[in-house]
């Protein structure tokens, strides 16, 4: 047995594994939203499913959850039931879906097949998504009753994540 090879080899293995292991679970592309703690960018958009126009400013006074999504996004399919169920359970929280890069037909088909419990707005030119700095869908912003963004979540949420972030808006 060659001791030198063994010792040097084990040291190399240990260092490499430690460094790579420490890096696991960190998202190199995650950057905190600069909007947190700032007033939510206003928008007035038409709801696809109900036809009414919704102005974010008019929703002051209760917490608002703005969920950006699209029918071409698979994680959004996974997240949808969570959102609908929570919206039904939490009547004091205003849920708003904002869909961009999509067509009304596809959205209506989606909602007809999967149910809806809150207004779904069409962000026709993507301006609202740009204002919020949406980096991908689904992405959800939590706004407190005074209109300040308190949290942002990238990717599909389950109920625990949703409620944990919502708690920040209720504080």
């Amino acid at each position, binding site marked *: 047995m060659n001791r030198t090879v063994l010792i040097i080899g084990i040291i190399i293995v240990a260092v490499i594994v430690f460094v*790579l292991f420490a890096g696991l679970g960190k998202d190199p592309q995650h950057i905190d939203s600069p909007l947190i703690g700032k007033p939510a960018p206003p928008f007035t958009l038409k709801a696809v499913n109900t036809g009414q126009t919704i102005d974010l400013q008019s929703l002051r006074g209760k917490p608002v959850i703005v969920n950006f999504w699209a029918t071409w996004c698979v994680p959004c399919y996974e997240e949808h039931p969570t959102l609908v169920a929570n919206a039904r359970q939490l009547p004091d929280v205003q849920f708003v879906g904002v869909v961009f890069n999509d067509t009304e037909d596809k959205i209506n088909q989606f909602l007809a097949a999967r149910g809806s419990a809150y207004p779904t707005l069409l962000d026709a030119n993507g301006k609202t998504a740009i204002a919020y700095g949406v980096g991908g869908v689904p992405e959800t912003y939590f706004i407190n009753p005074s209109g300040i963004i308190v949290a942002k979540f990238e990717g599909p949420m389950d109920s625990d994540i949703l409620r944990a972030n919502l708690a920040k808006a209720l504080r």
Partner: protein
Amino acid sequence: MTATFGRFLILASVLVSTTGAFIAYAAGAKRSPEGLKWSQRFAYAFAGLMVLATGVMEYALITHDFSVQYVAHVGSTQVPLWVTIVSLWSSLEGSILFWGFILGIYIAATTWVNRNQHQDYMPFAIGTWLSCGAFFSFLIAGPANPFLSVVPAPLDGPGPNPLLQNHLLMIIHPPMLYLGYVGMTIPFGFAAAALLRGRLGQSFLRPLRASLLLPWVFLTIAIMLGGWWAYEVLGWGGYWAWDPVENASLLPWLTATAALHSAIVMERRGVLKGWTVTLIQASFLLTILGTFMTRSGVFNSVHSFTQSAIGPTILIFLAAVLLFSVLLLAFRIDSLEAEGRIESAVSREGMFLVNNLFFVVFTFTVLVGTVFPLVVEAVKGKQMSVGRPYFDAMVVPVGTALLFLLGVGPALPWGKTNRKEMLRALLPPLVTGAIALVIGYAFGVRNAWTLLTLLFGGYAAHVTFAQMWLPLRQRLKKGDAFAPALIDAQLRRGRRRFGGYVVHAGAVIVFVAIAVSSTMRTQQEVTLTRGQSTTFAGYTVTFTGTEERAEPHRQSTIAHFNISKPGGPSGGGTSGGSSGGGGTLITTMEPRMNQYAAMREPIGTPAVYSTIGRDYYLSIMNLQGEQAGILIINMPMVGWIWGAVLLMGVGGLIALIPARKRTYVVVPESAPTIDDEAIA
């Protein structure tokens, strides 16, 4: 249904590869021919299952079966058929399945080629390959399962990553890369077999070297295609950004190149056995590290797939293979004792050693730069990145040194030489080096590193050319006719050697082209209103307008530019009818901005006008109404890189073609100065 069948195939392949690996190792330990037969059957069965599973996935993709999760993730009824087909490797799960597919083919083919040979080593090799196969099957069956069902099935999917739909090079770059990466499993298995057997005989060197050379060729081409793709698609005017994943592809290439060289010394002098085996193991380990980099979400890169549970799984595999390799080396490296020794430092074999040293330094430099941000984050908790200045500062000197060796090494004879012989070998190429230097200076090269590259490049070109045709010249000197001498000396008997020097010729051009294109490039950012023109680097660029084009999978805005030579007959009627411009119209260029359905940000496609001497590169920065903000880059020699790397690949293939059985080629023994070795 399709999903269930796919899952069944993958589970079967887990079972087959695991069982096969056990049987193979047992057969190796007991030296059982019957056991070897069985392990071969299991190797074929594993390959069959992988091919079938991949076929099932392609079928699901082509038929838009959105009940299969992977198809729901990357499929779309809106994209062209070729995009649908290549979607197999456009995302995480599919790419791992594709990996398994290639691994299966490699294992089966190598097993078949060696079915009646190297019976001592083959069981251990098959055992090692199938162990890797078992890991990848497990990965496909569990953490990266593409065959999960989606209920209810979505109506349509988002299509694959738009960047991948943006250029046809995307059809060939990933498969080439996988052929290179996955192929490193084969020499790794051979190296492990040699260590497990505690012997590395001359007869086993051929399959070992060939199994290393084939993935090396693919990896070489893949790295070039990646650079070319970045250049043609990403629009920042470069081909190499020291992105972690680019580095990940370069790292195993560097160690494999080193191993190909040390294998020659091993063959000629019977030394460096343990070293060569270590380099081969390192090459495989670096491919696994590269896979981890791309798929763990730990590194920030254009190549990153989304984060997933497969990161930890690959890390465990990497750790296990590292440990396996270290233990194997520690326990067995001394059994691969040297049969000869190196007599003189200033000799060809001495230069091989220095070459290996520099390749290893190169590898460490790139590896450190790549993982350093992780180290800092692990130790200090701060985010940082290592950029181009570090890599350029570190790599340029090492690369220049390698180019120097590329000239001096092959010029020196093997073994001990006296001073006079040495000078006679080393001095004449200096003339060519000096000529290259003067030509460069005359063309305006002032950068010291580039001038040095030209000097060494000219030197190496001289040596390479002389060595490449040496067998032919010796035959002609002996009075042989040209055609038979050419065929026999270069392509039949000296094929490995010839191929090796073709690789060297390509490498010399690559060195020079990289140095010239990166230090001699000039660029300008300018905003043009429709009809306006600007003159830069010898051409007048006139913006003639934009056009919208709708394709099923994307909306494109195409900007039209006329490129003309200034100073010609003004208003020559061909400059697009606009006021600016004038001169003789040379070409039109159409850079574009593409908007994909599934992506909010548009992706530009630059336009490149290539001539032998230089590339003229136009990229849109922004388009607003009648105004176009463009980036113009003038890059000399950049096109040479693609061609020269291709030449390296061709050289590798020439060296790879197995030599004819020598028994029926009756040729008088050639002069003693001819080296029968090849570079690879």
